[in-house]
């Protein structure tokens, strides 16, 4: 099973009292706000769920694993996410049964 944006929008429509179109727009906006903050280099923490952190990677020499050719990998930013302890506990108590 996979949860998608459409599933989340449907849940918002059904449980929070919106038309499907409005709910979709709201979910898009919510995700967009998070993306904007991350792109601006800011961390985003949702208590009970997890925290996204923006990390800067230095440029480094790498290799194309297929050809063995050396190349320079540019400095770049990456986003990492760490689960909240609450979520970890909930996942484990449910799936460990």
């Amino acid at each position, binding site marked *: *099973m*996979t*949860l*998608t*944006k459409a*599933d*989340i929008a449907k*849940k*918002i429509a059904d*449980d*929070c009292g919106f038309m499907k179109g409005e709910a979709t*727009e*709201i*979910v898009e*906006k*919510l*995700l967009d*706000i*998070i*993306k904007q*903050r*991350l*792109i601006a280099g*800011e*961390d*985003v*923490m*949702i*208590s*009970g*769920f*997890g925290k*996204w952190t*923006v990390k800067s990677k230095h440029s480094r020499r790498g290799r194309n694993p297929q050809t063995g050719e050396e190349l320079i990998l540019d400095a*770049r*930013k*990456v*986003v*990492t*996410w760490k*689960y909240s302890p609450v*979520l*970890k506990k*909930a*996942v*484990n108590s*449910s*799936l*460990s049964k």
Partner: protein
Amino acid sequence: MNKSDLVKMLAKEMDLPMRKAEEIVDMVFRTMSAALVTGSRIEIRGFGSFVIKKYEGYTGRNPKTGEKIEVRTKYLPFFKTGKELRERLNG
């Protein structure tokens, strides 16, 4: 940014009452958590995906005392950044 900042921004941008925005933000993350708790993956185009990885348990040893330790099977959620977000971070 934390959850209450997100609530404020969503309320402002979508012209919603604060309480409604809070209800929505809570519902979004509760829905996502509920999916992960059942072992489902989450796929949000342009943003990223979440999957549960299973780590099998094993019998380890305390290297100092030699004592056997049972490490139990565990499940951890992982996030993979989506293509659009990854590109815009470096755009």
